[in-house]
């Protein structure tokens, strides 16, 4: 359905402003609110989008997590998550 090219390490990504992203205490989770819906994020998804909320390059974001968790293996998973988030319109490339 989407013709968007996949994300490159140099792409700067940010949250789509239609979405409201925040920590929600009663849910003990990060949530995304959007017209007529909400998405409750698991811990890792919330952590990744919290970085996206600061507007960041894809490569930098992945570096941050592989260093934080001292694991190169998670890079692929993080990129897949970012691409899926992009496809769903939660995040967008900053031009």
């Amino acid at each position, binding site marked *: 359905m989407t013709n968007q090219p996949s994300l490159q390490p140099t792409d700067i990504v940010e949250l789509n402003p239609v979405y409201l992203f925040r920590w*929600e205490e009663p*849910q003990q989770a990060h949530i995304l609110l*959007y*017209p007529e819906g*909400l998405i*409750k994020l698991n811990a*890792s998804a919330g952590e*990744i989008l919290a970085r996206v909320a600061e507007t960041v390059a894809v490569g930098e974001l992945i570096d941050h997590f592989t260093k934080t968790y001292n694991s190169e293996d998670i890079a692929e998973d993080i990129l*897949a998550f970012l691409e*899926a988030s992009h496809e769903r319109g939660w995040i967008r490339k900053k031009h």
Partner: protein
Amino acid sequence: MSAAGSVKSTESEVKLPEVKVDGLGLPLWLLLELTYKCPLKCSWCNNPLDFDRYQDELTTEAWVDVLRQGRRLGALQLGFSGGEPVQRRDLEELVGEASRIGYYTNLITSGVGLTKDRLAALRQAGLKQIQLSLQACDAELNKRLVGVDVYQQKLACARAIKEQGFPMVLNVPVSRYNIEQAPALLAFAEELGIEYVEFANLQYYNWALINRAELMPTREQIAEAEAVVAETRARLGQRMTIYFVISDYYDTRPKACMKGWGNIHLTIAPDGAALPCQEARVIKGLEFPNVRDHDLGWIWHNSPVFQKFRGESWMKEPCRSCAERERDYGGCRCQAFLLTGDASDTDPVCDRSPHHHLVEEAVAAAMAERPHSRLVMRQRGLNLA
């Protein structure tokens, strides 16, 4: 309820997972029907047939109290609906308070009375999103469907909403009268840059149920509209999200109505009655708790009405032993009551229901040649005798 309304939760770690409903048993979705008053006369209105009886609306202070209690209970999504919520002069004040305490605020409106000044004030108050109804891209047809000449007003309102920069849902209540307008409505939405279009096939309660035989589109009409929607989705990609929700009458499994009774959704009616869904008043014999008498926590967690169809223990066969009961919760309690007379019956939309023939007969009647008869428009003092 709005079909677009959803609660999703991601599951496994990192990998984008299957989404599932998980409200932790909290009323994540709070809908305030501020008033049943409305300048329109739609023949599918979901307000009660005796809407005129409910003149004693909650005060501004009482609504503010409901908002605060709702947030303490964990509510996140907030809808201001009606009737026409713009009829309340305190709408801006309520939106302001709701935004301040952290709700995602949605306004569900016909656009009538929603002037540029009020839109600007609502923007200022923090309103996040507006759902505007539009019935046709044709002044005559629109007037015929809503009973009032407000077409130009609606178009102007749609433009003003986008000028103010609101994300917007264009909601099209779909009947056999206007389903062929789908291409024109989509073109209009594209021109304005509207993000979401919802083709809401009617749900047959209250006024829509009285007019069911007259309103139901044929399967051919639905298939044609679906094809237009598919083509537009393919062409516009992420620029527009189109929901096309077909009437459950054409299905063989019921909708997961409200994601379950007393599970994530709480409606407060204009008089303060707390309802597990907007239509729940159609079920006779239920004593709905009122926010004037009880706090929301007790209403949600402890009141008999909210527990009555919560979970599975109320289910009869064929639901009780059905493997799909966790997926659809037995369907809609209101529809079961309206069609079978017993709210604990399986929703007759399910082809495992012994009452499924009632739905099949209604669909067959819709497929047959029908001369247009008169629509019963929403009106005061309707005498059904």
